[in-house]
């Protein structure tokens, strides 16, 4: 087939909702977009383990400790599924991870905010996983097969993440005044960063159009952000927490909540590496990889020795 035929065939599959699979012909740019988006997503899962992981040793009771361990462990699994999806595109995991460590690849900027109190763990589950789920559910229908399959698996597992966060906040909001204040403080700090998780507004989003044409993305950043706000406001009301936005109000005509403009300066600062914890997060990931080097080498050396013994 000529290049033009290949391309026509590819576009036809996209139009007919037939998934693209690893060995299928695909435009270079489609491949690059996927590698960038999936690896960024994978890195977010892995870096996202750090702020919550900090609280495992301090979880206030044994049930919460087990739940948090299981939740953070799931995120490691999600990162792994996604790195595997990237591998099907011909980029191996080590390369993908090195791109994170060199600063070439990005991850969700939310994880550059610190988890300061136990209420933050609830807020992260509710708002951060909630925002992620909004995104991920849409991605279950993405056009690239391995990515879509990873997303289906991830979404199944995510469903407890948001619930455990919300449940934890219910406890705080029905608890003592200190607990309620702790919850409100977490809400104040995580609301805006959670809205930023959907990325730049559509007007400023460089990759959005083509991604939608290729059905990698099904909804724009602003559409998803709006859905998130609409879903979350009533949940905050049940908790009795105030959303830190004086302009938040139901718009009858649009059938959506109106909300203030995001502080895009802060958003771009954090994306560029100047958030409160960017440095610590990357350092922790680099350290884990470097400290683990001798372990991985040892296992490889052992496997080689045993293979030799077998053939000898």
């Amino acid at each position, binding site marked *: 087939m000529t290049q033009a035929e290949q391309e026509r065939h590819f576009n036809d599959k996209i139009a007919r909702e037939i998934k693209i699979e690893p060995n299928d012909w695909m435009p270079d740019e489609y491949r690059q977009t996927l590698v960038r988006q999936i690896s960024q997503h994978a890195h977010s899962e892995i870096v996202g383990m750090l702020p919550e992981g900090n609280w495992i040793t301090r979880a206030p009771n044994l049930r919460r400790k087990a739940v948090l361990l299981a939740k953070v462990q799931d995120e490691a*699994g999600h990162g792994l599924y996604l790195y*595997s999806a990237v591998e099907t595109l011909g980029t*191996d*995991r080590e390369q993908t991870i090195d791109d994170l460590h060199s600063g070439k690849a990005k991850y969700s900027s939310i994880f550059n905010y610190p988890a300061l109190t136990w209420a933050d763990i609830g807020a992260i589950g509710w708002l951060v996983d909630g925002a992620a789920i909004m995104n991920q559910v849409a991605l279950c229908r993405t056009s690239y097969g391995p990515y879509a399959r990873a997303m289906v698996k991830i979404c199944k*597992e995510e469903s407890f993440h948001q619930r455990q966060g919300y449940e934890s906040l219910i406890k705080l909001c029905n608890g003592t005044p200190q607990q309620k204040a702790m919850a409100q403080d977490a809400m104040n700090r995580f609301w805006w960063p959670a809205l930023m998780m959907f990325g730049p507004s559509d007007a400023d989003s460089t990759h959005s159009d083509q991604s939608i044409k290729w059905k990698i993305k099904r909804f724009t950043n602003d559409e998803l952000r709006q859905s998130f706000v609409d879903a979350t406001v009533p949940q905050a009301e049940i908790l009795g927490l105030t959303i830190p936005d004086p302009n938040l109000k139901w718009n009858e005509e649009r059938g959506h909540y109106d909300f203030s403009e995001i502080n895009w300066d802060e958003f771009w600062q954090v994306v560029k590496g100047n958030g409160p914890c960017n440095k610590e997060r990357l350092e922790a990931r680099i350290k884990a990889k470097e400290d683990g080097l001798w372990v991985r*080498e040892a*296992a*490889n050396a052992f496997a080689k020795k045993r293979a030799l013994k077998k053939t000898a």
Partner: protein
Amino acid sequence: MSTSQWPLWEVFIRSKQGLNHKHVGSLRAPDATLALENARDVYTRRSEGISIWVVESAHIHATDIDEAASFFEPSDTKIYRHPTFYEVPDGVKHM
């Protein structure tokens, strides 16, 4: 491959007795023993399986996508292999 990166393995899981092992994803492991253990921890945390197969990805042979037409399309015309090809009078039962 750098000296530290472990080989890639494909993971197949039998979710319950009576079903085939089904491909569920991949992971990295230095050898088959740890590949099985890693598969257990990565892919069966919610009781998704009762049996696991792992195979090093490098050992999988796949059909060539460019040959897909010659591999698979010839069978499309052999419609007589399907029961619906045959007409049976109304009233014939258990067939």
